[in-house]
């Protein structure tokens, strides 16, 4: 099957199966006829950038508790971190990072002690005083609190101690060496600097009335998602006042409503949909729309539950790898999707490029070889298996393709599509045969490997385990030793070499298949200029340079 044909098949499947996709296409098709006649009355004001996300509403603006990507846009505009990547990219080498609240930083030779020199005179919003080392110590300790609710708390596990060294200097001591501490922890949204005074004063309410030092100051949060969050430019921001006066974050879950809001000019930017054909259909309606994709975005992996037969057989797992045309999947999901070989995306530290992967570990698309491997494993006529996937578009779209490709080599996957909450809950109870995961990782090479494959992350039937759904490291040991070795290596380049060894071992053992990376997509009205090009980074990027023409 060609990529184009495959894309068409997928499009048909998804569009027929989901109301939302169907409606998106219908809306887009009808909208095409009348786009030129939009009413001026609906245009968003030119001093306010309005952006709409695919979510039911804000959950929290507390960085230590946030798990919803859409909320992180607001969090990172209200607050600053100590050090970050240049706008629109992920810094992948230590020298590429740029200062925010820290004006400089140093790493000890053993990569276990990091010292940050803070900017002086930076003020928290609304009169909460000057940002000092006390606030930084407080913020890092709070983010690492084992009982805190955020999704990224594990990033702080390696911190042994944070202490102030005078009013404008902070020293962070780590348990094990980490030459990528800035990339993994410091620049994360959960590591933004909070006002100790404000958090102490407001308690849990800080999640709905945040105080930061960032380019935009929080104004209001309305439980009505269509009103969302209002922010206004911080006139005294250390980086200079933001180019546009206000930032309005809205939540419009429905794809049709969100698309129409963009086409009508009600909003300037919307979160895109990670489904085959969506981008192309919108592009047809208005070719001048801008598509900003932060690559690599989320890593989509399909795990083999190796505690279930016949997935314990490496020949069966290799048959899957040869039967699934990952290039075609990436093309079908264009422009958001990219091919990846390992768990670290190409271009990320530790990520493998095509040339670095031995030919036999590339598992080229070869249905005949897949059939031969199945026959060798005792399944000349294939077999049937049960599995389930989430109703979320990115999961379902990919798994419908996988299902179809596997059917062609004789493997029938009876796929149940279930709601996203149940899907994850069941995965965490070891109930799925082909669990999938879609997670965005910072460029910290050990993180996806540890998260998905370490023995300590092994999934447990009682739900007390982690996200190692394949039972790798237990049923096939060895990965933990390599990860420990990497963790104890202070030299950046040597650490990457060890990580690449781990990646190759994973490719040999195939406890999972990294299907693709799916970038985060924002569709932008061309009137809005960001002031830089979005090439990569987290699923949020700064708008303080953005202007509306």
């Amino acid at each position: 099957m060609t990529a184009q044909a495959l894309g068409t098949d997928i499009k048909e499947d998804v569009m027929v199966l989901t109301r939302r996709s169907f409606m998106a296409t219908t809306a887009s098709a009808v909208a095409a006829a009348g786009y030129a006649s939009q009413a001026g009355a609906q245009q968003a004001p030119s001093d306010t950038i309005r952006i709409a996300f695919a979510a039911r509403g804000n959950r929290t603006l507390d960085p230590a508790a946030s798990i919803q990507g859409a909320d992180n846009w607001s969090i990172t505009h209200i607050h600053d971190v100590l050090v970050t990547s240049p706008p629109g990219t992920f810094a992948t080498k230590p020298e590429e990072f740029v200062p925010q609240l820290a004006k400089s930083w140093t790493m000890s030779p053993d990569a276990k002690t990091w010292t940050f020199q803070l900017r002086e005179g930076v003020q928290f919003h609304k009169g909460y005083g000057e940002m000092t080392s006390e606030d930084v110590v407080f913020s890092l300790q709070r983010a690492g609190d084992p009982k805190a609710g955020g999704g990224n708390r594990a990033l702080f596990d390696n911190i042994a101690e944070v202490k102030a060294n005078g009013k404008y200097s902070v020293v962070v001591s780590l348990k094990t060496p980490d030459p990528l501490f800035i990339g993994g922890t410091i620049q994360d949204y959960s590591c933004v600097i909070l006002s100790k005074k404000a958090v102490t004063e407001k308690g849990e309410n800080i999640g709905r009335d945040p105080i930061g030092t960032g380019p935009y100051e929080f104004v209001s949060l309305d439980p009505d998602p269509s009103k969302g969050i209002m922010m206004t430019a911080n006139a005294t921001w250390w980086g200079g006042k933001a180019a546009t006066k206000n930032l309005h974050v809205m939540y419009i879950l429905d794809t049709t409503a969100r698309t129409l809001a963009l086409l009508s000019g009600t909003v300037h930017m919307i979160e895109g949909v990670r489904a085959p054909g969506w981008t192309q259909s919108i592009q047809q309606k208005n070719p001048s729309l801008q598509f900003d994709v932060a690559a690599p975005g989320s890593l989509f992996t399909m795990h083999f539950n190796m505690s279930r037969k016949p997935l314990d057989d490496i020949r069966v797992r290799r048959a899957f790898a040869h039967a699934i045309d990952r290039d075609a999947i990436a093309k079908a999901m264009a422009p958001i999707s990219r091919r990846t070989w390992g768990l670290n995306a190409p271009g990320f530290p530790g990520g493998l490029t095509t040339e670095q992967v031995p030919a036999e570990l590339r598992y080229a698309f070869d249905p005949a070889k897949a059939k031969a491997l199945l026959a060798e494993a005792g399944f000349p006529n294939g077999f049937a298996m049960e599995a389930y996937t989430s109703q979320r578009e990115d999961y379902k779209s990919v798994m419908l393709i996988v299902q179809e490709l596997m059917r062609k080599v004789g493997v029938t996957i009876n796929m149940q599509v279930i709601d996203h909450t149940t899907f994850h809950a069941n995965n965490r109870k070891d109930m799925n045969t082909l669990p999938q995961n879609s997670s965005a990782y910072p460029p910290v090479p050990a993180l996806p490997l540890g998260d998905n494959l370490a023995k300590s992350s092994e999934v447990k039937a009682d739900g007390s385990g982690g996200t190692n759904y394949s039972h790798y490291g237990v049923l096939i040991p060895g990965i933990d030793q390599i990860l420990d070795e990497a963790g104890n290596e202070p030299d950046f380049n040597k650490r990457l070499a060890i990580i690449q060894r781990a990646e190759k071992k994973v490719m040999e053992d195939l406890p999972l298949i990294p299907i693709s990376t799916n970038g985060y997509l924002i569709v932008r009205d061309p009137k809005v200029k960001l002031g830089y090009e979005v090439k990569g980074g987290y699923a949020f990027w700064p708008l303080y340079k953005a202007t509306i023409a």
Partner: protein
Amino acid sequence: MGMTIARRLIDAVPTLLLVLTLVFIAMRILPGDPALAVLGEHATQEQLAEFRRKIGLDLPIWQQYVSFLINSATFNFGNSFANNFSVAQLVKLNLPYTVELTIAATMIGTVIAIPVGVASAVNRGKAIDSGSRIFSLVGYAVPDFFLGAVLLIVFALDLGWFPINGGGDGFTSRMWHLFLPALALGLIKAAFVSRLTRSSLLEVARKDYVRTARAKGASERRVVYRHALRNALLPVITGLGLSILSTLSGSVAIELIFGRPGLGSMLVGAIETRDYPVIQAGIVVFSLFVVLVNLAMDIIYTLVDPRVGEVS
């Protein structure tokens, strides 16, 4: 009348108790962990345990049930698991939008349906009847979300007469935001109610008292509106009552398409994230609506046909 209302309200108590109990059981057997839904798939066991402790999910099930009943009876639903807003605040935000949408859609539906139904019955077999039948068939066949999207594209996007998104602020803005979603639901409601009116009126038209009225020389207008329609309205009122209830709980798609707040989408979102307090509050409010709408229908029956009141 007062006694009837009081009796109906007292009768509703065991119904509500049963509904609440079923909701409590359903939420506990529903797959999916609220702690995981709120904290995300990468949450550690320590975080999950702390969350469960904080919201009382670690308590014995009977204690959770008792606390659930007490909270429901006192309308104290606490805070949403998902966003920490007070549930009362969320209901207070969403309820008016749902009520105004339901009332407006019912008004539009009724205003269109009754004349169309009457005209269709009076002109049975003629072009106007065929036209009415086509209108009804289309209304039955077109899903509300599709009609909503078409109206949105034509009148909001292309012509720019109405806003694309949201529920509006202030009376004028609210009405402006309300019109298209109410029209989408109202047109579909009209299709259903106009057929009901037509068939009910045709049924009544065969009755002796209608023939007698004609024999007495009453004008056709008087026969239709004074004698036939009034008696034909009882099943129409029943149909409208059911239709109101389905709009109250079933306008989720319209709320999503138009980006409107509303109880339906609040409840669906809460179910997705296993947000127990919001689900509980939503179900209690919907149950109360069922009781109140049924009560209102009973009262209207009595007004339309005093014999109903005499019997009860």
